[in-house]
Each structure stands twice: as structure tokens, then as C-alpha cells.
């Protein structure tokens, strides 16, 4: 089948390689299996894999692909490790908080396997640099968390004819598949267009079970190794869905769309485009307009201290309220607000808040539509309250 010749054919053109005595000992559990053997281990050694993202998915991918003996691993990430990463990004440790993720990831990978060559790309991947970053690699593994980058990686892989090992996670659910092989469908065949910004919550907003990226990242790692070895039945043309709560794996058929603009029969996208524009994301942060109707947390605190008469409404969820709350706030989760408007008086002065200010902005909008006139949004939510008013309120 053609997928077998795809990543591996590049390796076949490379100069003769062999394993040292140390490597033979290290990979012994691979070498004694006929499906891998010396031939397979040499294929792994000659393979060049690019991991985009050193986060939840990139962590298990980096650890296991290094351990397996993939000869050259590139990693793209420009972030630094923070405390909220440690619940799932097991390639980084507590001592690494504040360090660039690539430094921390590479330390872990080198410790596991010093025979692996590591390439660092400490930059955001863009339409300008994507081809030059991708061109040296046989396989690309997508572990990113945003739609513009996913479409960018997809299109670049299709155009450069490189398999794209895809994984994505949300709360307790994951998806994985292999795109952009010669006969395979691509991400645009699955989802021709991204959702409008803000409609699909990210992991930062929606949360994620810490173990979930481990499962999905290792499905991606398994598929990567299978593509390199040319064994088994690759996850091409099949979308694997995983539900951790039900502990159920399901599989859906994925077909190449003949109408697909990038991999279909009549291609209209033959180069990289502006993916932020495609996904409706502004390329430059929109200048903050001075909107009447916003209020700083420090002003809210001053109003409380003065004894001003106003209602502070918290529109977060009950489980968030249990983590941290602002004294005196009334909890009405955003989803319940339309049915609970009668609990608020349109003539009162009202301040709405949430975690960061996004949901409360929607709440303010909703109240204004119902003729509430004195409603304001607390900028930055309880997070900014913690930063500027009371550091005793935990951030999450």
C-alpha cells in the first residue's frame, strides 16, 4: 500500500546506519519482535518526526517517541511552563516552572534517550515559516490547541505530502486519526470550516481530564511508530473517538471529500493562506475601546467599602464558585441567567463578573437586551480581583 512507501521511502534513501552495542541493548525488547527487529529499529533511527506543541499531547509523544528510538525529533513551542500545565504535561516537572517548555522537554527526552537528535523551533508556526519547519521531516504530529494552527498544519502537510498524525482533546473526550497520506482524507475533509471564534471552548476554558492527553497522545505516538515501521493497519480514513467517562473507543468512517479545496479533485488552495482570517480571528489584538459599562475590580472593592448600593452577580458555574468566590456576590450561572432574570431588578445598579470577563460580557449584553440600564462588566473577572484586590482569592 502506498502509505507504507510514504514516510519510509525517504529513510531508504539515506546512508547506511547501524546500531551501536549500547543501542542494541537499549532497544532489545523491540529487536526481539520480528515486526520491529533490526530492520524496524533502523527505520526508527532514520525517521524524522516533527511534534507541533510541547503541551498535553506533546508531553507523552516526546517521551515515548524518544524512548522508542526515533532518530530525530523536532519540537515547535514558544511557551514557558506554568503551574497549571503540571496536571497533565508530564514531560515538565515542578522544578521547570518558568522555564521554556522546549528546554524542559528536551532535558526529559535526553535523559530518557541521549541517542536522539532534537531540533528546537521556539517560534509560533505561521504561514511564512511552516514549509521551512516541516520540510525536513517525514511525519508531522499535531498537538496544538487552536483552529488556525490546525488548518495551517493540515494544508502544509497536504501540499508537502507529509502524513499528519492528528489528536484533539476536550474534557473527557478525544479524537485521533491520520490525515494527508497519499490516499487519505485531510482535516478539511472532516471539517471544511472552523467554528466561529468563541463558540467552541478551549481546554483553558472548558477544562480537561489530566490523563486524557496521555491516552490520545499515545494513540498518536503508536500511529507514528506504525507509519515509520510500515506495519499494522494505520488509522487512515478512520476517526477514533474516545470517551473516558464511558471508557469507550468508537470508530467513524472518514472519507476524502472530492470537493475538498486542498486535497480534492479540483484544488483551489495550493499555497498557505491567512489562517487567522480563515478562522475569523483578528490578526492584531483589537484596540480596547473605552466602553462605558466596564469597571475595574479595584473600583468594585471601593464601592463595597463605601457601602454603595449595588448587586454583584457571579455568572460562573457552581463548581467554579466552590473553588473561589468574591464576598457578597450572588451566583447565577450564565446558562441559567435567561430563566432567572426575575431575581434581578432592572433599576438596580448591577456589576457582573466571571473568571476572566468573557462570560460576564455576554451576561451584560443579555441584561441590556432586557432593558437593564445600569449594568457593568468587571474587567478581568475574579482572576484580576485576585491580582489587584485580594491575593488570598485563589486563581485557577
Amino acid at each position, binding site marked *: 500500500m502506498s502509505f507504507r512507501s510514504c514516510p519510509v521511502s525517504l529513510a531508504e534513501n539515506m546512508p547506511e546506519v547501524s546500531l551501536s552495542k549500547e543501542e542494541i541493548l537499549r532497544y532489545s525488547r523491540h529487536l526481539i519482535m520480528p515486526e520491529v527487529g533490526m530492520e524496524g529499529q533502523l527505520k526508527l533511527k532514520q525517521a524524522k518526526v516533527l511534534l*507541533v*506543541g*510541547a*503541551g*498535553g*499531547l*506533546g508531553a507523552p509523544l516526546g517521551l515515548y517517541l524518544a524512548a522508542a528510538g526515533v532518530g530525530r525529533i523536532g519540537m*515547535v*513551542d*514558544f*511557551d514557558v511552563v506554568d503551574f497549571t500545565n503540571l496536571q497533565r504535561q508530564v514531560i515538565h516537572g515542578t522544578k521547570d516552572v518558568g522555564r521554556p517548555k522546549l528546554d524542559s522537554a528536551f532535558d526529559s527526552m535526553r535523559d530518557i534517550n541521549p541517542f536522539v537528535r532534537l531540533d528546537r523551533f521556539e517560534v*509560533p*508556526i505561521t504561514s511564512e515559516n511552516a514549509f521551512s519547519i516541516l520540510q525536513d521531516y517525514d511525519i508531522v504530529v*499535531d*498537538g*496544538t*490547541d*487552536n*483552529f488556525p*494552527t*490546525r488548518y495551517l498544519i493540515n494544508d502544509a502537510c497536504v501540499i508537502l505530502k507529509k502524513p499528519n498524525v492528528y*489528536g*484533539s*482533546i*476536550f*474534557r*473527557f*473526550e478525544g*479524537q485521533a486519526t491520520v490525515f494527508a497520506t497519499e490516499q487519505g482524507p485531510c482535516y478539511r475533509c*472532516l*471539517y*471544511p*470550516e*472552523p*467554528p466561529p471564534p468563541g*463558540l*467552541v*471552548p*478551549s*481546554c483553558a476554558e*472548558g477544562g*480537561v481530564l489530566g490523563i486524557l*492527553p496521555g491516552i490520545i497522545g499515545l494513540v498518536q505516538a503508536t500511529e507514528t511508530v506504525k507509519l515509520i515501521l510500515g506495519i499494522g493497519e494505520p488509522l487512515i480514513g478512520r*476517526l477514533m*473517538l474516545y470517551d473516558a*467517562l*464511558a471508557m469507550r473507543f*468508537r*470508530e*467513524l*468512517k*472518514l*472519507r476524502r*471529500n472530492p470537493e475538498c479545496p486542498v486535497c480534492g479533485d479540483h484544488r483551489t488552495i495550493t499555497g498557505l493562506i491567512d489562517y487567522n482570517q480563515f478562522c475569523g480571528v483578528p490578526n492584531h489584538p483589537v484596540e480596547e475601546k473605552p466602553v462605558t459599562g466596564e469597571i475595574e475590580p479595584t473600583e468594585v472593592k471601593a464601592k463595597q467599602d463605601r457601602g454603595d448600593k449595588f448587586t454583584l452577580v457571579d455568572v460562573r458555574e457552581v463548581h467554579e464558585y466552590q473553588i473561589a468566590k468574591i464576598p457578597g456576590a450572588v451566583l447565577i450561572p450564565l*446558562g441559567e441567567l435567561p430563566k432567572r432574570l426575575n431575581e434581578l431588578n432592572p433599576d438596580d445598579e448591577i456589576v457582573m463578573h466571571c473568571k476572566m470577563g468573557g462570560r460576564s460580557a455576554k451576561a451584560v449584553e443579555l441584561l441590556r437586551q432586557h432593558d437593564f440600564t445600569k449594568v457593568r462588566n468587571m474587567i478581568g473577572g475574579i482572576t484580576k480581583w485576585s491580582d489587584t484586590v485580594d491575593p488570598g482569592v485563589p486563581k485557577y
Partner: protein
Amino acid sequence: MARILIPTALRQFAEKHDNVELPGATVGDVLHALTTRFPDLKKNLYSDEGKLRSFVNVYLNDEDIRYINKESSPVTDSDVLSIVPSIAGGKHA
């Protein structure tokens, strides 16, 4: 009654159900029954013009309805419908 599986991201609009059984002779009928029972789901599944949104895929068993008879695909009691929206979780890069 066909079973319809509701993904995590949309459960907040479906009274937290992860699956429901609904009547209908076609995929369109079952989806209509779904959005009638949970009106908040409607804007997440359909555009203002009443078309299924392009980032929400619907599968009849393991087949994408776009490649069979779309919303007029016939449904029997033993069928399972799945809604699979695009998710992008992973790492910002």
C-alpha cells in the same frame, strides 16, 4: 426510537444528557425531535438559514451523513446517531 449520542461540548445545552432516544424516520426527523426537546441546541447545530453547521458532523452509525443521503437518510430503531463537533484541544503553538 433511534439513539442519539450528544458530545461533551453540547451537553450543557441538552440538560446534561449524554444520549437520548428519539423518534423519527430520517436523520432530519430525529435531529428535529432533538432540537424540539432541547431548543438551546438549535443554534449550535444549525445556521440561521436552517442548515447543519459545517463544523458539526452527524454520523449514522459509523457513516458521515454527508456521504449518504444527508438529512433524508432513513433511520431504524437499532441505529445510533452521533454528533461530532470539531474540538481543538492540545497545545497553543
